[in-house]
């Protein structure tokens, strides 16, 4: 794993003294961290298995400082890794050994909440939930709600194109951001998107959202706010069979219903969660489905009735509808606490993020069951069932030699199966450093080359978050040598070594 942390271009040599002197010209002392003790908290993000110490951490307070930092790094050839709250799960904010971390933590102001226009202008270090809290007095909220929303920042959400449990109905970050202000590695400021629809030219907003800090550094974000539904209710259904639960999800969609949330947990996840949160889940069920309806009271009643009918027809054993806001939150509490609950029953866990067509769910889950035997590790599954986004939680013990390597191989196999089933290696966590090898499975040489050309159009020197998100062709060739995919050798045109 230490090797994974290495950048693809290792020949960088930075004179730290020069860098420090140049940064001190415009950064006050409290905005610059140096020395191992201060740098240690920044060595990883939410994916703690990958760590690296940066040369320095910059904590700018103004956009002018961001521009100066980027110009300085550009002129000295120093890699820059932008960072929000560091809650990311793919190592996207893992530092570069020869680079700096550019923390946007101090960009924490909500600049404007416009009730009439239903939008908020915020700095990138503002927490996701803080936006909804600021909009609440106006009956508005910001829709994307990643599980980490109490901590994760809007800048990080933009970098990862974050989703959440409500994105089936309300969309991802890319559907809810109107405009961003971005600084290039050369220190040039770009306004991308606008408060008016369909900004002129290429849709660069779509390109930058989810670009994992590879194309620019965001200094301001304008988000869309939507009216808070009058009511939300959730239906909880238990199934004796995972395939039946998967079919029930398809049946809900086929009935023309797009629920506000549609989540599934398997038996292992339920078993981990129930003692922890006491949500009242059926411990004997092979799968639990949570289906939320929101809207006017009339609308919710109508939809809940239809969902209940569909679930019955799909063979649900037990169907319960939340009768109060307290009960609704309790039904959700288990799902939302799934990660920490699993964390209680295992020393470490590794969260995967594959997306598959919903109809392949049963196939995927039985394959995961076989992998549990193969790798000798347990796995609990939580699933954004509505949009096919699976979060297997592989349980391991980092203190046991070889355990992490097995967990990593287990995860890689799940991701590669996701691609084989017609899905993607990442639904919402990003590629980062974690899934860099699996990019070679999802994409062939021409697309990866195109990604590198896109990167170069924004950052010719490759100094923004190097080694992340898009693998080098050499890495793919090496990975392809190890993993023959679908009986074909990937990248046959490349020399093997």
């Amino acid at each position, binding site marked *: 794993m230490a090797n994974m942390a290495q950048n693809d271009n290792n020949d960088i040599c930075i004179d730290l003294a020069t860098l420090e002197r140049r940064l001190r010209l415009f950064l006050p002392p409290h905005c610059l961290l140096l020395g191992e003790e201060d740098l240690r908290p920044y060595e990883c993000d939410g994916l703690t298995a990958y760590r690296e110490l940066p040369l320095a951490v910059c904590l700018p307070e103004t956009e002018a400082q961001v521009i100066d930092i980027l110009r300085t790094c550009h002129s000295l050839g120093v890699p820059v890794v932008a960072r929000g709250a560091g809650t990311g799960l793919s190592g996207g904010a893992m530092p570069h050994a020869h680079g700096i971390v550019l923390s946007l933590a101090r960009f924490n102001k909500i600049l404007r909440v416009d009730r009439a226009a239903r939008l908020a202008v915020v700095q990138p270090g503002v927490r996701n939930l803080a936006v909804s809290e600021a909009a609440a007095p106006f009956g508005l909220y910001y829709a994307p709600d990643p599980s980490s929303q109490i901590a994760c920042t809007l800048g990080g959400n933009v970098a990862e194109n974050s989703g959440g449990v409500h994105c089936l109905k309300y969309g*991802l970050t890319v559907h809810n951001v109107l405009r961003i202000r971005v600084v290039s590695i050369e220190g040039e400021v770009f306004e991308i998107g606008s408060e008016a629809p369909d900004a002129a030219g290429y849709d660069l907003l779509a390109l930058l959202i989810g670009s994992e800090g590879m194309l620019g550094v965001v200094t301001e974000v304008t988000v869309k706010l939507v009216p808070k539904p009058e009511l939300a209710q959730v239906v909880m259904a238990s199934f004796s069979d995972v395939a039946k639960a998967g079919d029930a999800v398809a049946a809900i969609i086929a009935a023309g219903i797009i629920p506000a949330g549609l989540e599934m947990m398997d038996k292992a996840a339920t078993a981990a969660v129930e003692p922890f949160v006491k949500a009242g889940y059926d411990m004997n069920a092979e799968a639990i489905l949570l289906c939320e309806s929101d809207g006017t009271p009339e609308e919710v009643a109508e939809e809940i009735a239809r969902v209940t009918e569909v679930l019955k027809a799909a063979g649900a054993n037990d169907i319960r509808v939340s009768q109060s806001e307290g009960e609704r939150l309790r039904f959700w509490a288990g799902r939302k606490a799934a990660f920490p609950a699993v964390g209680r029953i295992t020393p470490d866990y590794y969260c995967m993020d594959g997306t598959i067509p919903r109809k392949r769910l049963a196939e995927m889950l039985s394959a995961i069951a076989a992998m549990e035997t193969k790798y000798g590790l347990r796995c609990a599954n939580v699933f954004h069932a509505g949009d096919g986004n699976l979060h297997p939680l592989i349980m391991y013990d980092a203190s046991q030699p070889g355990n992490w390597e097995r967990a990593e191989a287990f995860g890689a196999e799940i991701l590669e199966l996701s691609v084989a089933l017609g899905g993607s290696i990442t639904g919402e966590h990003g590629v980062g450093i974690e899934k860099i090898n699996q990019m070679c499975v999802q994409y062939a040489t021409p697309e990866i080359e195109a990604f590198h050309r896109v990167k170069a159009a924004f950052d010719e020197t490759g100094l923004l978050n190097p080694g992340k998100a898009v693998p080098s062709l050499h890495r793919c060739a090496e990975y392809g040598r190890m993993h023959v995919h679908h009986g074909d050798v990937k990248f046959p045109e490349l020399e093997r070594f």
Partner: protein
Amino acid sequence: MLTAHSLDDIIAAVRNAHAGHATLRIRGAGSKDFYGGLLAGEVLDVSAHRGIVAYEPTELYITARCGTPLAEIEAALAEKGQMLAFEPPHFSGATVGGCVAAGLSGPRRQQAGAVRDFVLGVRLVDGTGQTLNFGGQVMKNVAGYDVSRVIAGSLGTLGVIAEVTLKVLPKPVAETTLVFDCDATEAIRRLNEWGGQPLPISASFWHDGQLWLRLSGARAAVEAATTKLRGNPTVNPEKHWNSIREQTHPAFAASLLWRLAVPSTTPCPEVDGLRAIEWGGALRWYAGEVDGDHEAVRAAATGLGGHAALYRAPESLRCREGAFAPLQPALLALHRRLKIAFDPQGILNPGRLYAEF
């Protein structure tokens, strides 16, 4: 004219053009020939590369080849009670490739989102004749840059769209249209006020003292909103909304038509010729004069935080003034670098988006 019946034909045509430094003008049904800048180069007609490749109603996606008429796609979706929620215009036989390339959305955009919000994946033939597959058929996919959404509205300048996958949605159970009498200022005020409330408004259209409002969703939600808003329900509203989507409504009858996208709360700018307001106030249509003050219209839109496109105008005027709002120099330079990343020789639809590339 070159005619492509298959992906291989498209690849061959682009490779030849690339080798011979010839420019290509990509064309589906030609229903949007009026839109954008210069029409230059030999026509590459891709309308024969057609057909639905995959449609999975419960997975909410459809994959089709570029030449597939929107009508064919929508007919297949209607059989399963689904739709293209961004309501793209068909004009005269529009194809799905042209729909994505132009990036034009219809009345439902204010509720459902734009073309780009529904693009899940594209198969693209770039300016060197190489086939590139971006995105896929699943709704959540953050592996690699989201190039497929960028293709929406790029007017064929980054590659020939050979195949596209779109997210589809169920048709609403109930729809009602209400009509209100009010002036433009009042319409903008009301639309923004309603926009901040949990009302199922799926389309809005103001023209000549009348505000039309479409409510879509669960029957109970539509009924409750109808009672709350107290407008006059109208009969046979489908014809009306179709005339807006297809721009056959008299409001769009002008030899020169400006399309102003502005923040929805923007008051009426000091520009004459307001013909219609859509999208909750964010889209304004103005009739202009061929020899009018085009700079003033552009400046008014920019001053309000929006942008103005010469939507329908004589080609010579669109080429001279630029069809779309000019880009800042640094942004224009970035556009050119991206263009080169996909079409290094600049052979695909040169000048269709901006004269500079």
